[in-house]
């Protein structure tokens, strides 16, 4: 498909386990974002990748969260030692950039719903 693809769509895990969430952005989009959305809440910025630049990790809530982007394409968000408060929908978005600036149109995936029991 031509859109942003995320997997798994749903993940149920036990407290203390590690989880990996995958994002496959739109081909050619150099900017990639991860957001977290708790039930009925807004979009909480987590991390941003832009081309080959060092990622902006300023939104990661704790050192249990990490992300990488391989080859400027697929990204993986890893949550170690999951806690119940990590339960949320994790959204990935990608965008074209112009002159290093995001265009303003982010294309979102449908999200990965994480439930920590």
């Amino acid at each position: 498909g031509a859109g942003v693809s995320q997997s798994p769509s749903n993940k149920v895990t036990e407290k203390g386990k590690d989880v990996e969430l995958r994002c496959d952005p739109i081909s050619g989009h150099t900017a990639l974002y991860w957001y977290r959305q708790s039930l009925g809440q807004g979009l909480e910025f987590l991390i941003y990748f832009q081309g080959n630049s060092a990622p902006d990790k300023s939104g990661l809530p704790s050192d249990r969260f990490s992300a990488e982007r391989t080859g400027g394409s697929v990204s993986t968000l890893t949550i170690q030692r999951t806690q119940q408060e990590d339960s949320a929908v994790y959204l990935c978005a990608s965008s074209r950039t112009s002159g290093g600036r995001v265009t303003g149109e982010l294309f979102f995936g449908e999200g990965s719903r994480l439930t920590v029991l």
Partner: protein
Amino acid sequence: QQQVKQSPQSLIVQKGGISIINCAYENTAFDYFPWYQQFPGKGPALLIAIRPDVSEKKEGRFTISFNKSAKQFSLHIMDSQPGDSATYFCAARYSGGGADGLTFGKGTHLIIQP
């Protein structure tokens, strides 16, 4: 400085009525103002956007009104339909770029009653 304040948090409108969602900002370096629409179980999607050099943009039943001096912008949905029921996010792009180049409001949960 790079916050966008959105109101109301939730809104109920009768079918056929006008839905109005408001956003305000402080940073004059914002240079692009998109609105995103999110249906349950889906990711947000761009609905309509405006640049600060125009005061209004209309696409079908959706209109953005922009007041540069007041640093406010709003989304108007005319002849609101049950299918418009969704969460709406306003956003603003910071001209300085970077990760915080796009700042989102906290969202408005809109319900259109038939």
